[in-house]
């Protein structure tokens, strides 16, 4: 049955076979498998556009857009355009507010004592991120960088 479902998504079944399979499939409540095969087919054919709830994910991503702390003073060569509308000023205050709040959560602007690096200080994520992008070993490459 599963093999036939796979063949269906690969366009390898005839008309009669498709009818029979659809009938069987609806009887056996294979909805979950359908979703899985559709997902795998889309990935193999490079047609996968992300998760089903794309709009929500985009909105969530915009809301979570991170703040970059460094580099704000790095615009010496950019031309300065002065406009008198009020909204850019308000936006600037809002941006400063967000950066200020974020900065409060960081020790960047304070003198901090440092500690000697120990093996227990190395997060698994750090090693995984390294393997995911810089490994010649297939096993390490596959296992890297997934957090539940």
């Amino acid at each position, binding site marked *: 049955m599963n093999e036939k479902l796979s063949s269906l998504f690969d366009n390898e079944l005839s008309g009669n076979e498709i009818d029979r399979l659809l009938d069987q499939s609806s009887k056996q409540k294979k909805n979950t498998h359908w979703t899985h095969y559709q997902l795998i087919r889309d990935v193999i054919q490079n047609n996968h556009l992300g998760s089903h709830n794309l709009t929500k994910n985009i909105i969530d991503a915009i809301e979570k857009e991170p703040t970059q702390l460094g580099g704000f003073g790095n615009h010496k060569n950019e031309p300065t355009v002065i406009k008198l509308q009020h909204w850019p000023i308000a936006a600037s205050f809002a941006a400063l507010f967000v950066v200020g709040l974020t900065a*409060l959560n960081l*020790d960047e602007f304070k003198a901090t004592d*440092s*500690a000697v690096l120990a093996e227990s*200080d*190395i997060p698994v994520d750090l090693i995984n991120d*390294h393997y995911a992008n810089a490994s010649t070993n297939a096993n390490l490459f596959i296992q890297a960088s997934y957090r539940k």
Partner: protein
Amino acid sequence: MIYKLLIVFFLFFSSVSHSSDDPWLIIDKAAKATKLLSYKGVFRSQHNKEIKSIEITHSTNSEQEFVRINVLDGSPGEVLSQGKTTYVYNTIENDVIIQKRKQQRLFPAIFPSDTNALRNFYRLSIGKTERIAGRLSQLVVLSPVDDFRYFHYFWLDKKNFLPLKMVVFDKAKNIIEQASFTQINMVKNKNLDWFKPNVDPSKNYIFDDKIVGQGIVINRFWDIKKFPPGFKEVAFITKRMPGLNILSHQLVFSDGLSYLSLFIKPISRGQKPKIGHVKVGTNNICARYQDGYQIMAVGSVPITTCNKFSESIEF
């Protein structure tokens, strides 16, 4: 006049014979073999103390490479790669996580497409002929010219130059990493029926939207100076730090054979920055703190290289 013509003639032929005798051509041929040959085999891959059997099927069809890699021991995992598109199928308990990844140089395709850069930083020597996976192979040793790299031993198929075995040693001859085919067959059939994942209907298939290597366009607010010669930046990844609305950055450097990641992460409140060096498995990790940022260099590279990279960042 005749004398001058003879000199030109001699110079031309001596340059031709020199280029055909160039020992580095064997590395070029090996790099091409990994891209052009169609083969199926199983190799044993060792990193630190962990050894795994991995099955690989590779085919080049209409100038596009198709690769399927399947981990045979332990938790199942697969890689399906078509051209520049790579997907990882990673089984974690009852879930199969599908992730899109950047193209990688995974054994046996470990050589860069342009092998010229290797010539400046490694010395090439030819070793003995040995049998690997039932095939005759030629040992080729790349020895570093400085202390920033490891020794690389390659056993290349005598007939088609495909790397059959690779061992990476440090200066003290400790094995850092190795991979060796236990069986391999050249495939003539160009059929791509094999290019699909093993589907386990009892598992949940989840597409992980958090694409590894997904970059957020940012201004680089740092300079990198005085890092070891021969290394070039090959990837740049920016990610949001878990639980914080700020960015961390990963720069990947390679000299063509070795890789090192340089992480630049802001220190969060209550977190003490770390300095110094530690070895985890075969990876050297060097930490430095500067201007609110934790800088860490991570890689299977000598400690000298690791330290140089962690010290190379300037704000």
